[in-house]
C-alpha cells in the first residue's frame, strides 16, 4: 500500500520534470542571430575586455581551477546522491557548497563566495546537523527507497541531464572571456541599497518572519 503511494509520488515528480524539460527545450534562447540589438553592446565589451585582460586571472590557471573544483562539486553532488547516512550526506553537501564557493571566487564574486561559506557552511549545515541529531534515534538513520523508484529517478534525471546538455551546447552563448570589470564590494553594497532596496528590505523582513516562524513551529505544543 505504502509502496504504491511512494511510486505514485515519484512518478508525479518525474512528470513535472519531464514537463519542465519539454518547456525548456521549446524555449527560445537569445543568440547573436536573433538578437541584433546587442551587437553594439558586445562591441563595447570587446573593447573593455582588452583593457582588463591583464586583471583577469590567467585563463590556463582558471581552467585548471575550474576543472578541479567543478569536479569536486560534481563528485560531492554525486556523493550526496549515493550516500544513505544523513550525516554523511550533509558532509558531502558541505564539499559541494565549498567547491561552489571556490567557483564563485573564480568568477570574481568574492563576496558571494564568502557569504556562501558563512551562511551555508556555517549556518545551514549546522542547522541540518542539528536537525539530524534531534530527529534520529540511532546514528545510522536510513530510509530506503524502492529499487525501481531509484532506477526511474535515475533514468529521468539522466534524460534531463542529456537534454539540458544538448540544449546548452546547441545554444550560442555570448563568448566574453572576462568580466567587464570585477565587482567591488562597495559597488555591490551600493546596488543593494539603491536599485535593489525593496527586495533587500523584503528579504530582511522575510528573515525576521522566518526567525519567529521557525521558533514558533519548533516550539509548538501539542
Amino acid at each position, binding site marked *: 500500500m505504502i509502496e504504491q503511494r511512494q511510486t505514485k509520488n515519484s512518478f508525479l515528480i518525474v512528470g513535472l520534470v519531464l514537463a519542465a524539460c519539454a518547456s525548456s527545450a521549446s524555449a527560445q534562447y537569445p543568440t547573436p542571430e536573433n538578437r541584433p540589438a546587442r551587437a553594439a553592446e558586445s562591441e563595447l565589451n570587446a573593447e573593455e575586455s582588452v583593457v582588463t585582460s591583464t586583471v583577469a586571472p590567467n585563463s590556463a590557471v582558471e581552467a585548471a581551477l575550474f576543472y578541479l573544483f567543478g569536479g569536486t562539486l560534481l563528485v560531492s553532488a554525486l556523493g550526496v546522491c549515493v550516500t544513505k547516512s544523513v550525516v554523511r550526506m550533509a558532509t558531502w553537501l558541505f564539499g559541494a557548497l565549498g567547491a561552489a564557493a571556490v567557483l564563485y571566487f573564480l568568477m570574481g564574486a568574492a563576496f558571494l563566495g564568502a557569504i556562501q561559506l558563512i551562511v551555508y557552511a556555517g549556518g545551514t549545515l549546522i542547522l541540518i546537523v542539528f536537525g539530524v541529531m*534531534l530527529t534520529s*534515534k*540511532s*546514528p*545510522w538513520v536510513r530510509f530506503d527507497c524502492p529499487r525501481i523508484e531509484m532506477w526511474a529517478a535515475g533514468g529521468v534525471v539522466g534524460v534531463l541531464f542529456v537534454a539540458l546538455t544538448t540544449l546548452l551546447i546547441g545554444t550560442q552563448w555570448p563568448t566574453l572571456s572576462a568580466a567587464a570589470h570585477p565587482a567591488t564590494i562597495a559597488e555591490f553594497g551600493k546596488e543593494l541599497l539603491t536599485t535593489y532596496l525593496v527586495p533587500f528590505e523584503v528579504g530582511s523582513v522575510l528573515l525576521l518572519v522566518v526567525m519567529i516562524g521557525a521558533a514558533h513551529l*519548533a*516550539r509548538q*505544543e*501539542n
Partner: protein
Amino acid sequence: MSEIALETRPDPLAGTDKSEQGDVRTEEMLVNMGPQHPATHGVLRIVLRTDGELVLEAVPHIGYLHRCAEKIGENLAPYQYIPYTDRMDYLAGMNNNQAFAIAIERLAGVEVPLRAQYIRVMFAELNRIASHLVAFGTYGLDMGAFTPFLYAFREREMILDLFESACGARLTYSYITIGGVTDDLPDRFLEVLDEFMDYFEPKIDEYNQLLSFNQIFVKRTADVGVISAEDAVRWALTGPVLRASGVNWDLRKSTPYEIYDRFDFDIPIGLPGGSEGVPRAVVVGDSWNRHIVKVWEMRQSCRIIRQAMEQMPEGPHIAAKTKNLKLPDDEIYIEIENPRGQLGFYVRGDGTQIPSRVKVRGPSFCNISVLNHIGSGCLLADIPAIVGSIDIVMGECDR
C-alpha cells in the same frame, strides 16, 4: 554489525516517561559518568538519565573500591587494624586512626595521656585542613579552575611534610594508635608548625579571592543542589554538608570527645545570600555553602591548633599497655567528627584480643546517598558541582 547491535540491544529507557512538557520533543538517554571519570573523585559511577543537558536522574553506583575493610577488622587485633583504618579515608588518615583508637580505648578502658590527646587533636585538625585543602582544590578543578588546585596542594605538601617529620608517612600514617600516638613530637616541631600557621592563615583569604568569591564560581555553585535542613537531617547527612544546610551540629561541640571542650572555636554553618558578605545568589544548603563551610572550617582548625600548641603539656605520649588488649564482652559505638562528617566505629568484643564485630559508619557513604535527591533536575555541568561539594572519598565509601 553495529546496526544489529544497536537495534537488538534492549532499550533501558523503555517505559520511562518521555518529557512531553518541553518545547522540543527530545529523547532521553542513559550516560555513564564514571567509574573512570575525572570529576567523580575516584571510582564512583553515576548513571545519569539525561534529556539533553538536563539530568533527570543521577544514580550513584558504588563498590568499585570494596576491600572488605570491616571483615578484616574482625580478624585482626585492634592495633593491627589501625593501618587499615587510614586506608579507608585516605585523605584523613589521622582522623580515621583516631576514631578507631577512641573506640577501642573506650571499650578496653585504656587511659590516654593528656599530651597524647593534645597531639591527637592537633594532628586531627591538621589533617582536617589537609583534607579540606584537597576538597577545595579538586572542587576548583571540577569547576574548570586549575590553579587553586595547585595552590591547595602546595600548602597540603607542607602539612604532609609535618606529618612525615612526626611519623614518617605522608598518606597512611597509623600515627594515632590505641592509647596515644606512636611517637612523640620531633624536635622543633611546634616551631615549624607555628611558622606554617603564620604562613597558612593568610592563604585562606587568597583562596577565597581566587575561587570562593569569584563571580563565575559563585554563579556555578550558588543555588545548585540545595539541601534543606530537614532533608539534610532526614538523609542522615553529617559534617560540612549538614552544616551548610544551616544545622549547627558538630560532634566536637555537641558531644566533645578527647579534649575538644578545652578549646574555643566556632562552628561555621551555611549562610543565606546577602548576609555577611555572602553573594546574593547563595541560598542555605547549596553547593557554594558546602564549599565555603569547609574553607571557614580550615580557619577554625587553625584556631584549635594554635590553642593546642599553647596548652601542650609535657608527659608520656602513649599509655603503658596498648598491645594484646583483651576486649571485654561488650559493645561500643562511638562517632567522631571526620572532615567529611561523622565517622562511626561499632566494635564488639568477646573477651579475646580480636573483636568479633567491626562496623563502620562512613560519612561519604551516607552523604553520597543524597546525590539522586539533589542531582535530579539539574544540568549536566552541575553534577560535578554537586559531587564535588559533597566531597566524597570512595575508599571510605566502599571500604
